């Protein structure tokens, strides 16, 4: 396990460095800039602005400054939110996005995995088809459509009933304001998880050791929950790594629709405003998150699946 960890960390760090470099130079090559004002600005003011943000330094110096800044946790000033540094914006937005993301993930596992098991146990019955159809629907309907449909139903049509939910806003994280966004984020995961669990469960149920367990006379429920589920969950765990990336992209949409002050919304705003430092900061933090999550999943994977352990050792 430790050699694997060390090797993965050794791959992860250069990956991150490449991402930072590519980001930096792409953003600096842009034809437009954060100081393209609609009204003409006197050149002295522009020069002052450029000097203030060190945009008049040679490119290599800007790059090195940025890299060393990152080491100190300094992502530079935001070009549009003048009074904030990118670090402050991320520190503000990241917890919000992570809270919603993890809530969605937990909700999705709690709903999706049982749905998958139910479908697998009744393979090719009406139950199975219902779950499959529902999960196909969840995968196909994009969350920016689902978000608006949810707002239309709970925020507009049912406005005056007891199930009315706020159509947007954050209100410092009030529970009612979290329900729709978290549900909206979770839906595609529920669909994927149900699909993955169903597939792997069906395969596992055919395995010899499951038949043995049943032949011993164990009740079916015990066989499924104690014996089959553990191996059936392996593909589910694998999915959780890439799920972080989906979660972050999902948060862009959900946070934009529901007006939530998370990093997804900052990223979109930054991209629309050409706020280089903000966009780069969010990308780097997200990439680091995804890399770490993939690492964690890989480790979990070696713990769950002895086969992988042997291959890694060989």
């Amino acid at each position, binding site marked *: 396990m430790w050699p694997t960890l060390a090797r993965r960390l050794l791959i992860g760090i250069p990956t991150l460095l490449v991402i930072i470099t590519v980001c930096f130079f*792409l953003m600096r090559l842009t034809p437009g800039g954060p100081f393209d004002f609609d009204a003409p600005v006197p050149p002295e003011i522009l020069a002052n602005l450029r000097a203030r943000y060190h945009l008049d330094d040679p490119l290599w110096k800007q790059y090195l400054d940025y890299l060393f800044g990152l080491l100190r946790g300094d992502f530079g000033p935001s070009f549009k939110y003048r009074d904030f540094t990118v670090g402050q914006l991320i520190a503000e937005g990241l917890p919000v996005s992570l809270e919603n993301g993890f809530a969605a993930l937990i909700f999705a596992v709690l709903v999706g995995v049982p749905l998958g098991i139910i479908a697998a146990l009744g393979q090719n019955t009406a139950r199975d088809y219902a779950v499959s159809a529902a999960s196909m629907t969840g995968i*196909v*309907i*994009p969350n920016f459509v689902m978000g608006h449909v949810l707002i*239309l139903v709970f925020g507009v049509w049912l406005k005056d009933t007891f199930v009315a939910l706020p159509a947007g806003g954050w209100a410092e994280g009030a529970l009612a304001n979290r329900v729709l966004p978290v549900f909206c984020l979770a839906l595609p995961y529920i669909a994927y998880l149900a699909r993955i669990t169903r597939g792997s469960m069906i395969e596992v149920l055919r395995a010899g050791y499951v038949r043995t367990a049943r032949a011993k006379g164990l009740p079916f429920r015990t066989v499924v929950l104690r014996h089959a589920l553990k191996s059936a969950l392996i593909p589910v765990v694998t999915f959780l790594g890439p799920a972080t990336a989906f979660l972050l992209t999902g948060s862009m*949409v959900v946070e934009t*629709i529901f007006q939530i002050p998370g990093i997804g919304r900052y*990223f979109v705003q930054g*991209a629309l405003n050409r706020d280089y430092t903000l966009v780069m900061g969010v990308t780097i933090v*997200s990439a680091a998150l995804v890399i770490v999550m993939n690492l964690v999943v890989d480790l979990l994977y070696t713990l769950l699946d002895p086969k992988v352990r042997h291959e890694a050792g060989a």
Partner: protein
Amino acid sequence: MSDMAVALPEIEGRSLWQDAWRRLRANRAAVASLVILAVIAIASIVGPELLTWKYDQIDWDHVEAAPPNFAAGHYLGTDSIGRDLLARVLFGGRVSLMVGVLATAVALLIGVTVGTVAGYIGGRTDQLLMRLVDLLYSVPLTFFVIILMVTFGRNFILMFLAIGAVEWLTMARIVRGQTLTLRTREFIEAARAAGGSTPAIILRHIVPNVLGMVIVYVTLTIPQVILLESFLSFLGLGIQEPMTSWGMLINDGAAELEVTPRTLIVPAIFMTVTLFCFNFLGDGLRDALDPKDR
């Protein structure tokens, strides 16, 4: 006698595809999807030319007209500034489908090249290419598409190139896997013994044999690309006015949600139905072409 020897394998080769076609036709969901997709595609290509109103033309007399308004030719009504909804949805479909097909073509080109080269040549090349694929898998690539769109301006060509450049990974893995099982087969060995060069063997013998899997995967990639495009356009980072796409229409419709829900619902239905159909068709094709079942 020699005629027969030449003719026989040809008949076999064709019957393989005929077999798949027969299986596909037996799959009702797949056939229905194929028909619906054809209708949507033809309507998107031809429709905007046939309708009375152009997608960006404003009808000042019928702003926010409720559907159906046959007299003025607004079958699905108009939007908040008087543009014909049907014309906009069909034109948006043209853009979305075009991005879907072109970006998938880019992904196909890169994915098949990397996959066959890695699988056939093997060794160091394989190691290197597959490490690269692994590495790219662990990076949130959507962010990069957005950064590219921000950096180089939002234009149509860049959009499908950028999306294609991030969607090839799975294709490369699948093709490599297939190639690995093919490279040890006798007919490849025979081609090599006959003096075929590596590019020739890959092009003539490997590529036609991975085509089945590739077609399946193409049908499953197109909806993903359409989704990614509409995601970008929805965020305001994709297609630009006056052009439009399904994602942009959904975004416009969302702004009018309380007044005219149909401006959201109509494009959403068109897009969702298309995505459904591609997925069903892909599943059907997989069943029809899956070598395991043969």
